[in-house]
């Protein structure tokens, strides 16, 4: 029997060079000193968070700290110096120093045939503890993708930028919202940053009222500005008009942030229709504003018989109620909402009041089409796939493993190929929910909103900086099972790990060590997901369920 020390949350500090002197110095900083350390529980003290969930990063002029489009798992507090955020236009890819992700060569891939362990879930003993350093892109994009601008003055001349001074906090939107960075930030002077990984940021927000308020305000302000300007409705507004819209817009939240918990309970009870979801706007309501989805998903439905018929679902950037508001503006004073909007899990809504729309938006747009008109051309059967997709919450999927059961000969070549690419261990199960002749297998879907990441205490499960795939760093996974319990689709498996001789690795109390495992889309393997390439009957594909793809790519 092999015995190792059970992994703990802070076995792998975010910054291995952080010292007690650094922590003491940080505690004197006004932003940290204002925190009430007594509000933190004994098992997660403020000093412990600073010691283990943060690190100090030195920057020089031109250093790029975050890049637009990257996925990041940390936020930054400027403790010395000043930085610039690029507002417009976007910096070219070459200037941002983007390079293709590391992939195995052909011979390295081939060597897996004889280098893979013969024992299931084998790890070197030291690997169980996580003594190796984090891989590229595993923790944050700052340390790992540090590139610098060759010509800072030229960038300042050619691009619209804004200054971020000492005390400014940035990057929290991407870190907490599991969304890509929305802007590039680079150092203008020599400086130091306190980089806070999202687990620490989450604790700050949870236990300190001041940080909670600050993060929320930043979060809402940045989200609003970005989302409004990305919408075609507001894209053409001049800055003054846009500011009027920003000032008038309201923020609302429906459902629970950890929606998977309530969803699992609802599903056990069979209560999965629109009538069981939090109502955002109901049929017959008087529309008082445009509802824009900032994050999450919402269902648009209309009453039919004894239930609700789903017309469509809305994701980030989509909006609801415009046809009724437009009709009211045109003088149809009796117009009320003819469809219902409900929250599919957790939804952030921006409500743009009707008077603002009437003044700044409606004069510049064509009459919007009615969603209800869609129903006239569609049979109930046509929408069955959508209903099922929402019932199973698959609208979250960007890479669902979709198997055509009318083609699949159940040969398991996909499973074997997956195992060959993962040290002999398949990372999915060829079983799952079925609709007609389609099966969504139990493989990670690399969700738009990966709730599996919410509770991870070490950040082992994270998005890759490039591509945004959800992957698990085996070195820093402590086997707590939070991600597996959080995944609404049961696509993360906890496995007992073994040494190369086949002995189960156990801690000092003789309890087996577990690790979370799941599909990583064959990250690093040449040629993309092995499962897709291995299917001899073209029965397997990775499917983005979002939006129109559902109808155009998934055969009916």
């Amino acid at each position: 029997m092999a015995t190792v020390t059970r992994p703990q949350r802070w076995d792998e500090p975010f910054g291995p060079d952080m010292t007690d002197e650094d922590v003491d110095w940080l505690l004197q900083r006004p932003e940290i000193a204002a925190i009430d350390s007594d509000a933190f529980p004994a098992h997660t003290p403020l000093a412990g968070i600073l010691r283990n969930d943060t690190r100090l990063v030195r920057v020089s002029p031109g250093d790029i700290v975050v890049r637009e489009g990257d996925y990041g798992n940390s936020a930054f507090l400027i403790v010395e110096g000043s930085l610039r955020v690029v507002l417009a236009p976007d910096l070219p890819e070459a200037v941002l120093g983007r390079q293709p992700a590391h992939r195995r060569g052909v011979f390295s891939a081939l060597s897996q045939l004889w280098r893979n362990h013969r024992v299931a879930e084998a790890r070197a003993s030291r690997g169980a503890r996580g003594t190796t350093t984090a891989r590229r892109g595993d923790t944050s994009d700052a340390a790992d993708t540090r590139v610098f601008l060759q010509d800072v003055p030229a960038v300042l001349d050619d691009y619209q930028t804004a200054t971020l001074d000492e005390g400014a906090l940035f990057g929290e939107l991407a870190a907490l919202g599991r969304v890509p960075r929305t802007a590039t930030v680079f150092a203008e002077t020599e400086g130091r940053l306190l980089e806070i990984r999202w687990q620490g940021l989450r604790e700050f927000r949870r236990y300190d009222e001041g940080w909670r308020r600050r993060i929320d305000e930043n979060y809402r302000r940045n989200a609003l500005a970005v989302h409004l300007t990305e919408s075609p409705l507001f894209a053409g507004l001049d800055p003054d008009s846009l500011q009027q819209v920003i000032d008038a817009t309201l923020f609302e939240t429906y459902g629970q942030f950890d929606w998977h918990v309530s969803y699992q309970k609802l599903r056990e009870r069979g209560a999965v229709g629109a009538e069981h979801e939090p109502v955002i706007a109901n049929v017959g309501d008087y529309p008082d504003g445009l509802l824009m989805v900032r994050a999450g998903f919402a269902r648009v439905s209309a009453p039919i018989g004894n239930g609700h018929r789903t017309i469509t679902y809305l994701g980030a950037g989509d909006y609801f109620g415009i046809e009724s508001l437009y009709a009211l503006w045109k003088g149809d004073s009796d117009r009320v909402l003819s469809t219902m909007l409900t929250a599919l899990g957790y939804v952030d809504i921006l409500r743009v009041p009707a008077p603002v729309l009437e003044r700044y938006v409606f004069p510049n747009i064509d009459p919007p089409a009615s969603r209800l008109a869609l129903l006239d051309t569609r049979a109930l059967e046509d929408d069955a796939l959508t209903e099922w997709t929402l019932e199973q919450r698959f609208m979250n999927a960007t890479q669902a493993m979709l198997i055509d059961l009318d083609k699949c000969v159940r040969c398991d070549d996909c499973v074997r190929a997956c195992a060959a690419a993962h040290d002999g261990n398949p990372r999915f199960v060829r079983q799952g929910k079925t609709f007609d002749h389609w099966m969504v297998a139990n493989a990670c879907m690399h969700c738009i909103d990966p709730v599996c990441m919410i509770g991870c205490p070490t950040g082992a499960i994270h998005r890759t900086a490039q591509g945004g795939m959800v992957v698990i760093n085996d070195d820093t996974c402590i086997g707590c099972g939070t991600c597996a319990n959080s995944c609404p689709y049961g696509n993360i498996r906890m496995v007992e790990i073994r040494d190369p001789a086949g002995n189960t690795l156990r801690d000092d109390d003789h309890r087996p060590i577990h690790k979370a495992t799941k599909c990583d889309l064959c990250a690093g393997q040449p040629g993309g997901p092995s499962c897709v390439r291995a299917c001899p009957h073209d029965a397997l594909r990775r499917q983005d369920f979002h939006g129109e793809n559902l109808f155009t790519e998934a055969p009916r």
Partner: protein
Amino acid sequence: MTTRPSRVGQLALPALAVVVAVALGGYAYRAAQDLGDPHFLTGYVLFGLMLGLVLLRGRKALSVVPLGRAAFWLRVHVVGGFLGVIVFWLHTGALWPIGLYEQLIAGLFYFVSASGIFGYVVQRAYPSRLTQTGREIIYERIPAAIAELRDAAEDVILECGEKTGSDTLAKYYVETFEWFFRQPRFFASNAVGAARGAHWTRHHCGTVARYLSSAEEPYLDKLADLLAAKVVIDTHYAAQRIMKTWLWGHVPASMALIVLAIWHFLAVNAYAL
């Protein structure tokens, strides 16, 4: 990123095979007219084709290397296999050759071709039949699934006896249904798509129903549900087993054929040239 071929792309391979077959047939005909010997060329082409067809096994084993989609390789394998039959006939000039060694090769060749066609047909026909059962089950889990059904059925029978005080259903279970729940049944019927299993369970449920009290009938209904589930599992067992095991004949025979063909190739090149 790999993409699926268009319909035109899918037709390209068969079209190419037809072109090769016609060209080779034309050459063989013309060579025969000119008193030449087309057998060497057709033999080389056939030998090359056979080696090429074996590469599909290699592609499957090398799934970690980006060698293109296995689906493309299978299409090449199928089209190449049909082309191989035509080239074989062009090469031998007859359906059945003379000479013991050649007959051995021909026998293996026909077996490999027939088993390949059989595999192709069942892999086209069975998947949708399995889909239509309304349940998916992994082949390796079938024994466990049957055991679960058997346990559930026995629980129903025991409960029926305890609650109603009658052993009619229990006796009938031991006489008939216990056999059915022991292992997969009606393999041949399920293999050809008949419904003998469903018919058998209906027949026996009807036979015993007339002797049951109204208190026992709900237990027979529960048992009927379990029997229906077992019928589905039997269908999966038969179809999945055939889809997996036809290769047990096709692949070893292919290997044996390759070995014989290599010897034939060496012998001809050593003594006939």
